[in-house]
């Protein structure tokens, strides 16, 4: 339905404009002097009010032949054809209305003046319809601009949101404080390992801070961040944590969004390994197929863990970033089985 029909005040205003048209038309008809303007208005006002609604059909034409995607000749021909048809409709209504007037008030005015006015009426029909159509196209253009602006704004908000979340995810407080606690334990029992762990933690923090400021990194770089993270966790979890990597050199040269893999690896530890009494092995695999890069992180999980369906394991941030960056081509797929959790992300593979 035309949006104007849902807004009473706008509709009233619109009809007032058409009454003004009716007055103008009546004044033109009165020029030959065969009839008063008032009598002519009695004839034109109902016709114009009817035509006001007929002209709303321009809305459908405007939607069926949008300026942006239709060639201009088709837009013009569609509008001219529609205006001609509408005008014919107006003439038919005028003839019918005249019959009614004659029947209601026989002998009013000078007979035949209406017939003389028909060419004027036909021209008015065409012009007014085209005018209505032009206004519709104008409004549609405004609408389009506003929607585009809103979309851009929404994307911006999403991007910043992702950035903030990514920044927060960089330094998971559990990870940080538990690592410091491990160092604290090692200083007394095993000083060289304590020192090595301090250096690993420094590496991890330095890398994640520098990646946060970049647009893309190579998968190799992203993996070295994951490796430094896993090395630290290995000290914490000891032989409860096993790590397997399966990625070839070509895959490692691909460019990826920084910190896109890291939250998934952290999840695999936090919701997977950390929940298992005897731990398990995390497997990270990558392959490039049909121009797409697919990265998979697989971890064993406790069947009795709390599940939150839909969101997988709090990976919604990764999903949003992927769709923000790659649209429909960026995906996160999650397989949440009782004793196993697999998250895989895929997006277009780019090597530069």
């Amino acid at each position, binding site marked *: 339905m035309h949006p104007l029909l849902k807004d009473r005040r706008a509709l009233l205003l619109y009809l007032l404009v058409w009454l003004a048209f009716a007055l103008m038309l009546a004044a033109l008809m009165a020029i030959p002097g065969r009839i008063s303007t008032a009598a002519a208005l009695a004839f034109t006002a109902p016709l114009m009010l009817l035509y006001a609604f007929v002209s709303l059909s321009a809305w459908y034409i405007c939607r069926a032949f949008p300026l942006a995607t239709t060639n201009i000749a088709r837009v013009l021909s569609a509008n001219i054809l529609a205006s001609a048809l509408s005008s014919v409709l107006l003439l038919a209504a005028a003839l019918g209305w005249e019959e009614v007037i004659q029947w209601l008030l026989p002998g009013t005015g000078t007979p035949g003046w209406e017939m003389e006015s028909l060419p004027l009426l036909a021209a008015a029909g065409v012009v007014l319809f085209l005018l209505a159509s032009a206004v519709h196209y104008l409004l549609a253009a405004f609408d389009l601009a506003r929607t585009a602006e809103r979309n851009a704004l929404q994307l911006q908000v999403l991007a910043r949101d992702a950035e903030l979340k990514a920044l927060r995810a960089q330094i998971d407080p559990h990870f*940080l*404080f*538990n690592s410091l*606690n*491990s160092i604290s334990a090692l200083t007394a029992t095993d000083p060289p390992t304590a020192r090595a762990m301090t250096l690993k933690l420094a590496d991890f923090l330095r890398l994640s801070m520098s990646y946060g400021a970049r647009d893309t990194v190579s998968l190799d770089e992203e993996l070295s961040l994951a490796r430094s993270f896993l090395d630290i966790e290995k000290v914490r979890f000891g032989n409860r944590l096993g790590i397997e990597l399966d990625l070839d050199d070509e895959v490692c040269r691909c460019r990826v969004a920084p910190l896109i893999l890291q939250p998934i690896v952290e999840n695999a530890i936090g919701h997977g390994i950390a929940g298992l*009494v005897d731990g398990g092995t995390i497997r990270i695999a990558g392959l490039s197929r049909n121009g797409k890069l697919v990265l998979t992180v697989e971890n064993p999980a406790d069947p009795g863990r709390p599940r939150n369906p839909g969101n997988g394991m709090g990976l919604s941030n990764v999903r949003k970033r992927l769709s923000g960056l790659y649209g429909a081509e960026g995906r996160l797929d999650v397989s949440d089985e009782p004793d196993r959790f697999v998250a895989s992300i895929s997006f277009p593979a780019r090597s530069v």
Partner: protein
Amino acid sequence: MRIVIVDDEDLARGVLREHCEHHPDISIVAECRNGFEAVKAVAETKPDLLFLDVQMPKLNGLEVLELLDPVPAIIFVTAYDMYAVKAFDVHAVDYLLKPFSRERFEEALQRARERIVDGTVPDFSAVARENLRHAPAVERILIRDGTKVHIISADAIDYIEAQDDYVSVHSGGKAYLKPEALSGLEASLDPARFIRIHRSYILNIDRLSRLETYAKDSRIAILKDGTRLPISRKGFDKLKDLL
């Protein structure tokens, strides 16, 4: 003083052990790597003091707390847990934030010694309740049976019956007794699945087979396994709203 250390990380237990070694009167009677071992060790060794990590596999520290009886003096240990730490502060529960200094450890130990002498116990149940408030509906019920712990997932519960100071959790033809009030359990279970159909009964709605009416306001729920449970008038209204 007899103590038990509970933490899933070797190194974290090592720090506690190291600090304890400065106190000749302390003997470590057990070290546990998870909540199950902790519940068992406390039941068997009856320690004076428990160092209890909050984040652990299977049963976390607060869940362990729920299963201890009697409750020894406890010092919670956590790396980072906003809600728990807030609750600890509010209810004067002793805790250590990892990593902690020797001084901080001595302070907490001293307070625990005083508690053991006075016999004062902080309001642990309030801590557990507050912890639940920040969690979504309970997905499992923990029940201690001697030194064993049963974990019954919410899906496996048929119905729960009030029995004096206990609730009897019925699951797959077995019944498990837990010292808790039916109203407390009702509040923590998912209200879309578990309905208080009677003063003494909570029903898992998935188990309902049909309703039978005997007289006005006298109805009985027939479960899929044939069990018959009474329905109060208020319970029937709730069922009606849900179905």
